[in-house]
């Protein structure tokens, strides 16, 4: 897997609201997505995962405001595109062409009054104006078969499809222009495990064929560990740990990551002790000082309540050198 | 206004525009149906002609001959003979003969729904080319109604199966106009070139229906309509001042009145003294000015007979009587009758305070204002009144059933004051409260003398009996005050002399100026372009 970055996020800050009651939802996010990789994003509900996904494409619903930082997209050739300074027209051209999204909840992501065909082709119409009608229809059929839906479903309306099919249509749509990046925000919450696995397996195959990068957001840590190359853990609007999937699973460094990994039972193997995480997540408008996790952290010590730990490569106590991993914890500085 | 400029209205083009605030019409020119557009707008009088033309504002004058050159009543008014004008002919060129007249009277006799005036026709015959009508009773009080019956062509009407529901869409009459176009909004008549009785200068008549007074007033003020009759709250400002030189109005009175009807079957209004006292304090002048906007002639005689139209009928004792409010006199009268005034509240002899509720339909603005004034007036006697409005239908039912305290209402009118007195006081019409009385005596006025006097008047064989009966009626009316007359019922109109002159005026009262009266034809024939 190449280490060439395709999307770099640095110092990204996002607020909801513009007045004094504004909620500071993302704080100094630094993240790099590499070409061809699956980057998993996990964290407690409300930790800012969706916010991050939408902020990158500037699709935050009002009152979201990006208040700082940079987002750069790297074209395969090497030149960078500063997404935060694009004009609406440039943004339109950028979107879907280079970066597409699969939104949370397929039920509401498809326009209920247009056919699948019309929704698949209008993106082609917008971005590939030189295609003829027949070509567009052809491409739409191709896309559907890519996700295992027969072409005669093109004329169907969303409500005529099952949840799984809708989800697959969304995925097909995301791949319509063969973008470099696909962001998927909890794409399978509504599905049962069988369907979920079918879809994800399809996606992995397609990634191998087409070579795009994926940002994969989910609550399901098992799923994440299984399917992603790298995982970033978020807590309270910050990324607290980032590492290869296997590393995180075997050796979480941040106490929160550790807690997460000890909160879900495993289906196979020996029964593990489940410890969980005590306390409840902080509200964004009343964030603890210092490390946001310290009130719930069993290993907190005096700097935790005072200083925000930077996201940095951990000091390696055992002398091992675990690839490119970073963690934001005073225990590891 | 735009319409006037574009429409080519005016003497130069020979068009006369008329208007009425009665809402859209339907295409119906049956002259005998009061629901037809011809009746509502009044154009039936331009198409069909009467035997003779009476003058409502001078009911005692002899009528002008029209289709009949002469008519003769037998002494006791049970037989009349018409001599027809030989020149008369129908618009389709056929001559108008005695057969047509005979046919017409027989038509009315046969179809009582067409016989609105309820004339009790008996014998209809043609003798020597003259038409002879005979009756079982004296028709003295109906004489004008009979002679102004309009005549329809036999050759057309005899083919009509059901004249009561016949819309008569292409009316053929003997008059100077025929129907040109009909729309619910506007009806246009055009002059018949072959009119038997001379030529008319007005080549076209345009009747427009408006939905309410205010629209009609505006049309008059802007000159869009030249002839109409609309009640206006302030006619000087709203109409005259818009063109003081040409905008004219004249509201002469006929022999009918508006007045406050009492329910004489209800206590304490069964007490004539109370009614009379109230009549004595009513400020008719204020009503004339504020409620009737000076359009309706003031009632000056306590007998209620409008002057000058009713001058000849006045009883000697009331020749010079007037209707000045007399609060002191009224109080005295009440005191004599056992009423007491304590703390500003009038109590009847049994000690109950006198209060009453005036009712009238909402929207009958002049009446409501009139009631408000009367309410103010009788307060001086210590009587507390309330003005209540109803829908016109509910009110109509209540009045017919005697379910009211007092209400402002009109009376019938006719060639003599008989019609109005009969309407108010006829014991023959008396119905108990709760049973509908549709023709009159809504106040349940019970007076043997009045009933006798009315009968005597109608059936009298000679003038003396009539005069005596009339004098008796006036006395009863004044002393018992079954109703307080507040204003005369005018037969007036607004008209413009901008394009047409020759209108009836106070100085030349040859006809009442209203265009829904039979005499409208006389007026139209009299009009000439204003240069």
């Amino acid at each position, binding site marked *: 897997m190449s280490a060439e970055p395709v999307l770099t996020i640095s110092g990204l800050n996002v607020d909801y609201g513009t007045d004094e009651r504004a909620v500071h939802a993302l704080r100094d996010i630094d993240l790099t997505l590499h070409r061809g990789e699956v980057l998993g994003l996990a964290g407690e509900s409300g930790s800012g995962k969706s916010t991050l996904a939408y902020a990158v494409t500037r699709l935050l619903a009002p009152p979201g*405001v990006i208040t700082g930082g940079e987002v750069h997209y790297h074209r395969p050739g090497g030149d960078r595109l500063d997404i935060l300074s694009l004009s609406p027209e440039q943004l339109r051209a950028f979107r879907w062409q280079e970066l597409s999204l699969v939104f949370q909840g397929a039920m509401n992501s498809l326009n209920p009054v247009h056919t699948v065909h019309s929704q698949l082709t209008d993106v082609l119409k917008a971005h590939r104006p030189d295609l003829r009608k027949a070509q567009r229809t052809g491409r739409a059929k191709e896309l559907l078969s890519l996700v295992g839906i027969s072409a005669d479903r093109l004329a169907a309306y969303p409500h005529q499809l099952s949840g799984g099919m809708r989800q697959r249509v969304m995925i097909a749509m995301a791949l319509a222009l063969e973008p470099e990046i696909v962001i998927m925000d909890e794409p399978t919450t509504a599905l049962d495990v069988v369907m979920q696995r079918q879809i994800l397996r399809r996606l992995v195959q397609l990634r191998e064929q087409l070579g795009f990068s994926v940002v994969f957001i989910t609550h399901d840590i098992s799923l994440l560990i299984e399917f992603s190359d790298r995982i970033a853990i978020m807590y309270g609007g910050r990324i607290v740990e980032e590492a290869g999937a296997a590393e995180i699973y075997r050796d979480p460094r941040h106490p929160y990551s550790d807690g997460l990994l000890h909160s879900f039972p495993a289906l196979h193997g020996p029964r593990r002790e489940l410890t969980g995480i005590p306390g409840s997540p902080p509200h964004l408008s*009343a964030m603890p000082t210092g490390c946001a996790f310290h009130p719930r952290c069993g290993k907190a010590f005096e700097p935790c309540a005072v200083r925000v730990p930077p996201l940095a490569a951990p000091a390696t106590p055992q002398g091992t050198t675990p690839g490119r991993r970073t963690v934001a914890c005073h225990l590891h500085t | 206004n735009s319409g006037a400029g574009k429409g080519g209205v005016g003497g130069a083009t020979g068009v006369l525009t008329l208007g009425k605030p009665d809402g859209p019409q339907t295409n119906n020119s049956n002259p005998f149906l009061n629901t037809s557009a011809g009746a509502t707008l009044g154009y039936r009088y331009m198409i069909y002609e009467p035997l003779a033309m009476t003058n409502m504002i001078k009911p005692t004058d002899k009528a002008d001959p029209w289709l009949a050159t002469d008519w003769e009543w037998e002494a006791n008014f049970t037989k009349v003979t018409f001599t027809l004008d030989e020149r008369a002919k129908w618009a389709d060129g056929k001559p108008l003969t005695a057969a047509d007249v005979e046919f017409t009277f027989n038509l009315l006799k046969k179809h009582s729904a067409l016989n609105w005036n309820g004339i009790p026709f008996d014998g209809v015959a043609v003798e020597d080319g003259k038409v002879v009508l005979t009756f079982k009773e004296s028709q003295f009080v109906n004489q004008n109604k009979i002679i102004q019956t309009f005549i329809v062509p036999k050759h057309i009407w005899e083919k009509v199966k059901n004249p009561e529901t016949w819309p008569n869409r292409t009316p053929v009459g003997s008059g100077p106009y025929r129907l040109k176009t009909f729309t619910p909004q506007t009806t246009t008549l055009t002059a018949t070139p072959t009119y038997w009785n001379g030529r008319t200068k007005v080549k076209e008549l345009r009747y427009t229906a408006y939905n309410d007074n205010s629209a009609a007033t505006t049309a008059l*003020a802007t000159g869009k309509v030249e002839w109409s009759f609309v009640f206006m709250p302030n006619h000087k400002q709203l109409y005259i001042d818009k063109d003081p030189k040409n905008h004219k109005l004249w509201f002469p009175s006929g022999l009918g009145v508006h007045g406050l009807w009492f329910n004489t079957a209800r206590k304490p209004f069964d007490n004539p003294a109370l009614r009379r006292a109230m009549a004595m304090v009513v400020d008719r002048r204020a009503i004339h000015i*504020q409620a009737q906007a000076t359009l309706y002639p003031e009632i000056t005689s306590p007998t209620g007979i409008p002057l000058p139209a009713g001058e000849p009928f006045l009883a000697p004792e009331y020749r010079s009587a007037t209707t000045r409010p007399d609060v002191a006199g009224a109080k005295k009268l009440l005191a004599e009758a056992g009423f007491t005034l304590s703390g500003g509240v009038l109590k009847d002899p049994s000690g109950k305070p006198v209060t009453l509720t005036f009712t009238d339909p909402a929207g009958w603005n002049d009446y409501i204002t009139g009631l408000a004034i009367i309410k103010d007036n009788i307060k001086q006697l210590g009587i507390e009144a309330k003005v209540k409005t109803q829908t016109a239908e509910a009110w109509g039912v209540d009045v017919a059933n005697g379910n009211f305290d007092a209400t402002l209402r009109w009376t019938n009118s006719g060639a003599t004051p008989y019609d109005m007195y009969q309407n108010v006081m006829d014991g023959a019409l008396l119905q108990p409260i709760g049973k509908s009385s549709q023709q009159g005596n809504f106040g349940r006025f019970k007076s043997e003398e009045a009933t006798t006097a009315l009968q005597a008047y109608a059936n009298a064989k000679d003038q003396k009996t009539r005069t005596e009966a009339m004098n008796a009626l006036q006395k009863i009316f004044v002393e018992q005050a079954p109703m307080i007359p507040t204003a005369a019922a005018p037969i007036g109109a607004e008209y413009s002399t901008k394009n047409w002159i020759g209108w009836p005026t106070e100085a030349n009262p040859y006809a009442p100026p209203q265009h829904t009266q039979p005499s409208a034809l006389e007026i139209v024939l009299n009009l000439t372009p204003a240069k």
Partner: protein
Amino acid sequence: MSITATDTAVLDGAPAPEAPTRRARLRFLRGGKTRTGLIVLTFFVLLAVIGPWIAPYDPDAMSDQLLQPPSGAHWFGTTHTGQDVFSQILVGTRGVLVVGFVAALVATVLSVLIGVTAGFLGGAVDEILSALANIFLVLPGLPLIIIVASFVPDTGDLLIAFAIALTSWAWGSRILRAQTLSLRRRDYVEAARATGEPTWRIILFEIMPNLTAVIASGFVGTVIFAVLTEITLAFIGVADISHWNWGTVLFWAQSNQALAQGAWWWFVPAGLCIALLGTALALINFGIDEFVNPRLRTATGSSRKVKMRVGFTPVARRPLTGDRPEHRTSKEPRP
């Protein structure tokens, strides 16, 4: 119309940690619009209560001051019989508000009874009640009121109010039925049933409270409708004009052709009062609507500093709020 989209919003009530009390439910009263509306409405309610006492003249009393333009003595001028227009409007406020609120109350009760019953019980009851509501929706309103009003010879305020209520409940009941239908299958209703709550308690305590915003909004809407209808009725002369209300004032003004006579003071104030009252009620309704449907809250839209736009998140690289992270400096250089 917007109600259709609100059913989820009614319930989910975005978390508002800083408003932990019961008063959160009255939050909609806080908006600027709502407040303006309430102030104006309160003003008119005050007039309705004290109007007759503070009226400088007896509204019926005639004088010789015929058709006088506004002056110190007669603020809104006089009528053709010398009555004081200002006093008529003051005295008339009560009738307007009484009819408006009584009609709205009756209509709301009717619509709640019928709509909620239909929605909750379902089945044949629902079919019948829905058909009933639809029939009333189909029957022409104003003419029907005219007819109902002419049923009884004595057309007082209350009768008019009832006639208006009778013809205006159907719309609200339709909306409430739809809402109840969606609430009926909610888990918490089923949960209450599973807990063993009797049906009447479920309707009254589980479903109804969730409809309050919709009911309130319907109520305010009906008040507007009732006031306009009452005034129209008075204006076309169907109502009892011996009772003063703004419609009666307009009725007199129009039947005396006040505008044509140049007596604008007779015609204009009553109309403006109606429009003001209507606007006030509409503003309150907005408040309720926004409360029902949080997406309509304009407060979360743009501010002066940043222009919000759906689909194009603004970038404002300045601290917008005071609490920028103080540890910005501690950030490590990017790899």
